[in-house]
């Protein structure tokens, strides 16, 4: 009795008759199309139930208004790039990860697709005239997961292929890799796969491809010559609270369960992938801005991983207590170093007391 996902497509009237809209709508032939004035009329309504909308998200097709590029967040690794920017061609994600900051960032779980890519490209060209650019095109969403509908990743790669000063990062949990296999590898594009242990995928990353599927995709993309970064981020503290009768074990003093899950995960990943051929491995523990966590907890009052007693750092970010974060990141990096050259492992730490 609940409508199917994307049963409705809300379309800004100004772009109703455009070719890109027609193309996107062909992927949803049974969807009800509703003309709207501005995407915020639907996306920013009062009192929306994010949790319920996540079960049956709708699509909103809109025009992106300036700014087209944003400075990279301090909560994200810039990988040493000075001109670190990101752009949002989409807002929200078709996946439903329990720990995702988007659950506290947006008022709605509906997906917004901004269709005027050309204007974003023009802005990028303006910046490139001044300096090289490190641009993440899949923040606040998983762009690749919607590639069969939008074709945006393909357009970005065509654009990047003629601009050597532009470095693109495409972050994803998706297993869809056709855009990478249908053209020669680009030197200035990094495909960054977020990987998690199967236990985490099964329990906290609803709707995402399983670990084996992601590994298969990485392998194929690496074989085609693309640069691949593995992001083990966020690392979650896992315990076996369901079986364990000792409360002390839940307090981060006992990492036995966590170690078993994460070491098994790294064994599985590097049994299939050659660590020497990866561009880098990025590791970061769970963290979320104070306001986002507060809102996410309100929306998901029974999520145990969100209600962990995190500590607030001086940048207003909730993270694991420094002692626990240092231990889990240190242990993970040490274990990863068995498979990947140390200089390729990047640890992003947020637990500044």
């Amino acid at each position, binding site marked *: 009795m609940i409508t199917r996902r994307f*049963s409705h497509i809300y379309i800004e009237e100004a772009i109703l008759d455009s070719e890109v809209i027609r193309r996107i709508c062909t992927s949803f032939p049974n969807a009800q199309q509703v003309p709207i004035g501005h995407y915020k009329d*639907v996306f920013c309504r009062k*009192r929306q139930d994010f949790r319920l909308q996540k*079960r049956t998200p*709708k699509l909103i097709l809109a025009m992106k208004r300036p700014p087209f590029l944003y400075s990279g967040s301090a909560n994200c690794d810039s990988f040493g790039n000075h001109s670190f920017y990101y752009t949002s061609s989409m807002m929200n994600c078709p996946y439903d990860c329990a720990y995702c900051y988007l659950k506290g960032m947006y008022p709605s779980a509906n997906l917004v697709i901004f269709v005027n890519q050309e204007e974003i490209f023009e802005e990028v060209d303006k910046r490139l005239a001044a300096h090289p650019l490190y641009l993440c095109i899949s923040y606040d969403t998983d762009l690749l997961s919607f590639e069969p509908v939008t074709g945006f990743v393909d357009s970005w790669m065509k654009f990047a292929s003629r601009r050597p000063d532009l470095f693109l990062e495409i972050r994803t949990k998706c297993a869809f890799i056709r855009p990478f296999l249908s053209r020669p590898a680009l030197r200035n594009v990094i495909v960054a796969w977020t990987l998690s242990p199967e236990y985490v995928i099964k329990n906290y990353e609803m709707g995402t491809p399983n670990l084996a599927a992601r590994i298969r995709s990485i392998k194929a993309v690496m074989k085609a010559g693309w640069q691949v970064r593995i992001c083990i981020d966020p690392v979650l503290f896992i315990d076996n609270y369901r079986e364990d009768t000792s409360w002390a074990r839940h307090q981060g003093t006992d990492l036995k369960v966590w170690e078993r899950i994460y070491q098994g995960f790294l064994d599985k990943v590097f049994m299939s992938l050659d660590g020497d051929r990866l561009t880098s491995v990025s590791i970061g523990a769970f963290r979320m801005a104070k306001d986002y966590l507060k809102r996410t907890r309100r929306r998901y009052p029974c999520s145990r991983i969100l209600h962990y007693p995190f500590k607030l750092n001086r940048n207003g970010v909730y993270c694991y207590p420094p002692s626990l974060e240092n231990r889990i990141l240190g242990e993970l990096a040490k274990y990863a170093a068995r498979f990947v050259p140390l200089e390729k492992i990047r640890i992003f730490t947020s637990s500044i007391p």
Partner: protein
Amino acid sequence: MDLVSSTDEGDIDMIFLTTAMICEAKALTRQLGLKRVKEYRQFPIYEGDGYILVVSGIGKTACAAATAFMLTRFGAGPSDLLVNIGLCASTSDRLDRGKTVIANKVIDHDSGRHFFPDMIWKHPFQEVGLETFSTCIEDGGRGITILGECVDMEASGAFEAASFFLAPHQISIIKIIYDYLSPVRPDHALVTDFLVEPCARILVWLKDLPMEVLVEQEALTEEDIGLLEWAVKRMRLTASMAWELKQLATYYRLSGWDLKDLIRPHYVPSCKTKNEGKAVFERLKRGIYPE
């Protein structure tokens, strides 16, 4: 162990209905067996098993006032629904007379504002954009720009008023096509007869809605909250310390533990000063999560 509880434990999910005219209401009250509640003089209100209906009178202002009155008086909550039901006109003869339509967009003609219900419920009705006018549109709407496929005189008032109390997925606007912008003064008895079948279909749809998806889950039971309030008073905690205790207790509870094991007179002695309470609180915190 039951880790979660409902916020509305014991509350009955309520479906609030609004109609403009008594003759529209009758098609519903008769089928639902609703009885007039005599204590309300402002608006005729009918009540029955899981339903409350208000008759607002014609026009969006009357509808907004009646909707707000009903939702306030009966304490509408997150697991309730509001449905505005009534006659409307169609701007096109593609929609047959007697057809039931549901609005995916409500346009207030006067203000130009657009309202969007969250279309999360599957339904058997045709979806339309519905435009609300303050006056009756006659003569086929000649000389007037009409954006909606259907027009009425209440929907925007019902939606805007209900939006102060309810989420957009809790509000539905359902209309039955009666004329094509050339209204004749309706014969009230005929209107009731005209609406019986469409209303029966609407009621079947409402009866089958999975209202349980609206129930919000909470980590702490009412008993847990009572226990925490008792501890906060005993330790003379500040508001921020009380919030911190609730947060820790939530994690403790979600981990499958019983708060009664932690918060009991032996661990939470009655404190005479705030400083004494602070020391007890620190000790209690370490019991939940050591620094």
